[in-house]
């Protein structure tokens, strides 16, 4: 019971608080800005065609309604919450009859597939390589690995992706330039292999950067854990090094790593904006980018809300699984 009261309840409260603050900020930003989104949208709509004053007024009314800008600011706030709790993010403004929900549903599968795979691959490879390099820090391969990954790590992601794209599709055309897959969707070999071929390069660009980060982190953790008494004792007892590393060392460095894995899986819902734009991959990031270009402000808000809820929920789940990973939390 004390676990529930002292551990789980505060985490749940924190989750509610994160979502509350996030939604409130998302609500306030458009209203604090000096630009009125309705007038801006009107300006865009009437730029190419002249409307009669009555039509403009009617349009203005319906836009105000759509944006949820009617009534006092408190009324708007409660309406906003009611719509969110019903899971209704409103219509998209550029592809009008489509709702934001439907557009997100169309693209989220692509993003989850790409980012889920590459986050997990990068996490595993960075963790294993980093622990190996941290434990055997005097070997030549560990130095080579460390130096090369530390050079790669600070390169801005956009530039890394761009260079990969230029090299492997333009100068050496090994991979297709754009898109998520060819042919009709289905469980046929040709379709699945084309999906893999199309997503290989975006995945590679994410994996490189993320692996380098995970490598640096897990190497630091392992080398500080290496000087612990239990490791020295295990070495004196002549346990095989492989066993020391994989059964004792890595297990003890696991906690922050699992936290990070959970958080980066939660960040998937944000979409990989730059990745998807650079590689024209049809996921959430591309949808967001198109929304940015066409000022589809409802869509941007939908993706923002989705990513806030995604990351808050991920961090809640991570917190709630701590007791399973770490007995110290369980028996506090």
């Amino acid at each position, binding site marked *: 019971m004390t676990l529930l009261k002292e551990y789980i309840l505060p985490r749940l409260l924190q989750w509610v608080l994160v979502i509350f603050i996030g939604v409130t900020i*998302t609500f306030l930003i458009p209203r604090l800005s000096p630009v009125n989104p309705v007038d801006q949208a009107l300006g865009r709509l009437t730029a190419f065609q002249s409307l009669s004053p009555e039509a403009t007024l009617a349009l203005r009314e319906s836009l105000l309604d759509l944006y949820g800008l009617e009534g006092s600011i408190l009324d708007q706030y409660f309406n906003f919450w009611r719509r969110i709790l019903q899971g209704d993010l409103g219509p998209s403004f550029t592809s009008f009859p489509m709702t934001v929900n439907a557009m997100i549903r169309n693209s989220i599968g692509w993003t989850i597939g790409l980012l889920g795979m590459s986050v997990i691959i990068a996490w595993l490879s960075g963790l294993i390589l980093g622990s190996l390099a941290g434990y055997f820090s005097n070997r030549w391969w560990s130095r080579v690995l460390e130096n090369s990954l530390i050079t790669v790590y*600070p390169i801005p992601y956009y530039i890394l992706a761009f260079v990969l794209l230029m090299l492997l599709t333009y100068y050496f055309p090994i991979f297709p330039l754009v898109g998520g897959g060819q042919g009709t969707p289905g469980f046929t070999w040709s379709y699945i292999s084309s999906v893999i071929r199309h997503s290989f390069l975006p995945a590679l660009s994410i994996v490189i950067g993320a692996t380098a980060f995970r490598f640096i982190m897990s190497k630091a953790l392992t080398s500080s854990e290496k000087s612990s008494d239990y490791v020295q004792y295990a070495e004196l007892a002549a346990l095989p090094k492989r066993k020391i590393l994989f059964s004792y060392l890595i297990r003890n460095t696991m906690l922050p790593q699992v936290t990070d894995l959970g958080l980066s899986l939660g960040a998937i819902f944000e979409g990989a904006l730059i990745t998807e734009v650079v590689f024209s991959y049809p996921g959430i990031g591309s949808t967001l980018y198109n929304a940015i270009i066409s000022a589809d402000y409802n869509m941007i808000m939908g993706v923002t809300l989705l990513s806030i809820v995604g990351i808050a929920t991920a961090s809640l789940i991570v917190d709630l699984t701590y007791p399973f990973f770490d007995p110290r939390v369980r028996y506090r």
Partner: protein
Amino acid sequence: MIVIRDLLRFSPSFRIGACILMGVLVLVVLSFFSPYAPDDRRAVPRNRPPSGEFILGTTSTGQDVFWMLTFAVRNTLIVAGIAVLIGRSIGVLLGMISGYVGGAFDRVTSSIVDSFIVIPRLPLVILIASILRGQLSLLGLAVMLGILDWAYPSKRYRAQILSLREREFTHTGIFAGMNTFKIVVQEHLPFLIPFLLADVVSGFLFAIGFEVTLAVLGLSDLDSQSIGTMIYWGNYYQALLTNRTWVLIAPIAASVVIVVGFYLVSISLSSYLDPRTRLARLQVGVK
């Protein structure tokens, strides 16, 4: 000063990083001697590859890439500097106050800070920038980045203050009759300054990354020169497809160099801050 001397002597990565940043600083200073105004179009022949006359070539709008780059680096660093200044001031103040006051105030602020750490910043920045489209000046961008980047530093300062408050010399100071303000300024601030330095560097990295990202998406002030807008206009005039890669390579190389320079300085600072490596260095010095 002693810190910098030590770092220069013992840390090769700090030496390289400092050299790179000095080079960047020279570029910034050069921007004041530019023969062209920053937005002076058609000042030179268009689309020339790098040559003796135009060191880094010229753009499709007839601007000299080298002089454009000096303005871009200056503006990007100014944006990052303002963002860092705002973000760190909020972070340091809030962290120190909640660390010293403690109690219920501390609990409330900590959970708010924790929420802000979790909330993703890129979508928020995009939302703000897309609503303010075209009206967001570089200064506005800097203020916005600063306002979004304070939560994590604030948490770190709070942790530092909490540990400093329990140290022996704090109690000695209190018993010796020093008032709180004096203890904070004379005894605790010197411990926080190295952390502040490391933090400022990571803040620079964050702000530069966001500036470039936003500009590449076409969401920042596209009329002024910055590293991001140079890449944006390079893409806009199809520099890649028409094989005028020098227009893109210059800003990309500049941003990589700046980021690597800051990064080297930051890893040498953080290894300097780590007491274990400092001990190792002291032993080297004794020998």
